[in-house]
């Protein structure tokens, strides 16, 4: 499983990987914070889209710019920009999502010192025909902006080729998720989390090839059938998770994370972009059709219905909400999501995390109690 080790190492230390691929060729690397960043466009421009997950270090410089009630993703990302840990980036793209990320964009532009900076002011309501037209228009503007900045032609053919590569990654990750849900022992939830994180920072062609090889090595065409282990099955729901150890804690407590509704999870994988016709319109179409994140709107109950459906489909005994402290969009959605789960008789629990996990004793007790309860 050298390949799995390689992907886990990249997820563990994505900055070292980025420095390596930048290398002598000075491959452009464009940072992003959110699953609404159109990475197909970035790939088509010959650049590597690089997802920023926050920091692993202490936060000090960022607190001079952001209030301490901003989430650790915004504060941690800015910290790494200000300390120079992200100096391999050629620029950053900020899709319009939550308030913190929008304001971070301004601070980033003024203080980050990166040559390229773009705000993609996406629509908030994603269930209207006008939003579709508008979404396509802003993505087209981003394409032109990036092409001019990187001085590349960025043709429709380039875009279609990039769409195919990113689609392959999504298909492979989707297959891995499905296999893991069916047979959780096939690879650990922690490893799956590391693999998907690696795919978000790697050169996408390399990621697609590595994932295809990983699937082959796991023999997923004929996955082993395991007897009911009696282990509990849970789903994670929330924003980003930058703590692989959390999956291990759940595993030790007797529960397998069999699916998720996370930005660092299935939100990245869900839906494929059409490979024929206007590629920009097809990218917009995926965002319009994909289940929304709480910073966007489709209808009032879509996420609630989806979460209940996910729990039923994957036979999960419970849902653990994993929220970054001070993440308002997720906190706003939580009461109604919990209500949907309560009505469906699915137990749930909230874990609030920051760049560091809470004291282990308390968190273990809460996780174990929840696992014992479901």
């Amino acid at each position, binding site marked *: 499983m050298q390949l799995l080790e390689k992907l886990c190492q990249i997820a563990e230390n994505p900055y070292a990987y980025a420095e390596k691929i930048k290398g002598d060729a000075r491959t452009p690397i464009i940072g992003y914070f959110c699953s609404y960043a159109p990475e197909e466009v970035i790939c088509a421009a010959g650049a590597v889209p690089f997802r920023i997950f926050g920091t692993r270090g202490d936060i000090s410089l960022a607190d001079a710019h952001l209030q301490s009630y901003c989430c650790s993703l915004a504060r941690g990302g800015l910290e790494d920009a200000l300390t120079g840990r992200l100096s391999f980036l050629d620029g950053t793209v900020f899709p319009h999502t939550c308030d913190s990320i929008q304001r971070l964009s301004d601070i980033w532009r003024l203080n980050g010192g990166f040559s390229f900076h773009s705000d993609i002011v996406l629509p908030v309501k994603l269930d209207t025909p006008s939003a579709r037209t508008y979404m396509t228009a802003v993505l087209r503007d981003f394409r032109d902006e990036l092409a001019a900045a990187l001085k590349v032609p960025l043709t429709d053919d380039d875009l279609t080729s990039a769409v195919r590569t990113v689609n392959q990654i999504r298909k492979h990750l989707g297959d891995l998720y499905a296999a893991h849900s069916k047979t959780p022992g096939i690879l650990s939830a922690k490893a799956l989390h590391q693999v998907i994180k690696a795919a978000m920072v790697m050169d996408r062609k390399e990621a697609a090839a590595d994932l295809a090889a990983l699937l082959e090595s796991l023999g997923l065409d004929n996955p082993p059938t395991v007897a009911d282990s*009696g282990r509990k099955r849970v789903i994670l729901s929330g924003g980003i998770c930058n703590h692989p150890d959390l999956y291990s804690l759940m595993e030790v407590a007797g529960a397998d994370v069999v699916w998720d509704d996370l930005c660092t999870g299935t939100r990245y994988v869900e839906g494929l972009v059409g490979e024929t016709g206007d590629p920009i319109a097809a990218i917009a179409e995926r965002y319009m059709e994909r289940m929304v994140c709480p910073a966007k709107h489709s209808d009032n109950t879509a996420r609630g219905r989806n979460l209940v459906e996910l729990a039923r489909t994957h036979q999960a005994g419970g849902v653990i909400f994993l929220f970054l402290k001070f993440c308002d969009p997720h906190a706003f959605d939580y009461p109604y999501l919990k209500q949907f789960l309560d009505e469906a008789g699915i137990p749930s629990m909230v874990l609030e995390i920051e760049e560091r996990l809470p004291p282990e004793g308390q968190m273990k007790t*809460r996780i174990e*109690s929840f696992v014992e309860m*479901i």
Partner: protein
Amino acid sequence: MSIVAGCDVGSLTAKAVIMKNGKIIGSHIIKSKPRPKDSADAALEGALSAAGVSKADIAYCIGTGYGREKIDFVNEVVSEITCHGKGARWMLPTAETVIDIGGQDCKTMKLDKDGNVDRFAANDKCASGTGRFLEVMAKVLHIDIDELGKLSAKAKNPITLASTCTVWAQADVIKYINSGVSIEDIGAGVNTAMAVRVAILVNAVKPEGDIFMTGGVAKNIGVLETLEKLIGKRIKRSRKADPQMAGAIGAALLSMEKIDGSGNNRLK
């Protein structure tokens, strides 16, 4: 019927209970030592001695509490939330809502008909609303923690602490001591501050049915009575056992269910 044991190693105290035929035949509580293993050994030794049995007589033992992973003589470990729920139901068979205030956290649980935890809420922000808060305040007031609860009934004009942060509240208490406020009025203010924090958590699980309180703070009458006023419901008492032993009792009960296949708990 076999002899079983439960051992609850918390951050402030370690407890062990020996049960036979569903009855407690020995128990022991000690102040936690730096190493959970040493605490567990000492607590179990005391309980064995009280019961007049030896370690070899124990058919099954479940460990719980924050030090549970470090106890080497247990057959398995179970979280203290599950154990307190089980112990509370044994102490008060009608208990539906359980409030457990331990040394470093505070939880409220709703129990199902079998005494299993159906829903719970736990503090995850800070040390206010935990036994540690009362311990720190008792130390500042130079009184025994067991005396703190009785001060509320004697208070004439209880103070209101400006902050429930344990560190800031400590500074606040020192200020009141230096300005000549009576120990009773300060103690009552401390108990109220504690009860206010706990009430938030209790209300989060929408308490129903009979309410019971476990953990060392259940013995603080000042906190208990203020909490009753704040949640507008009576918290039932039980003389069956010391509420501080509820976690260890629950662990012993689960041990019993484990070996005789009784009960209907959801553990594997």
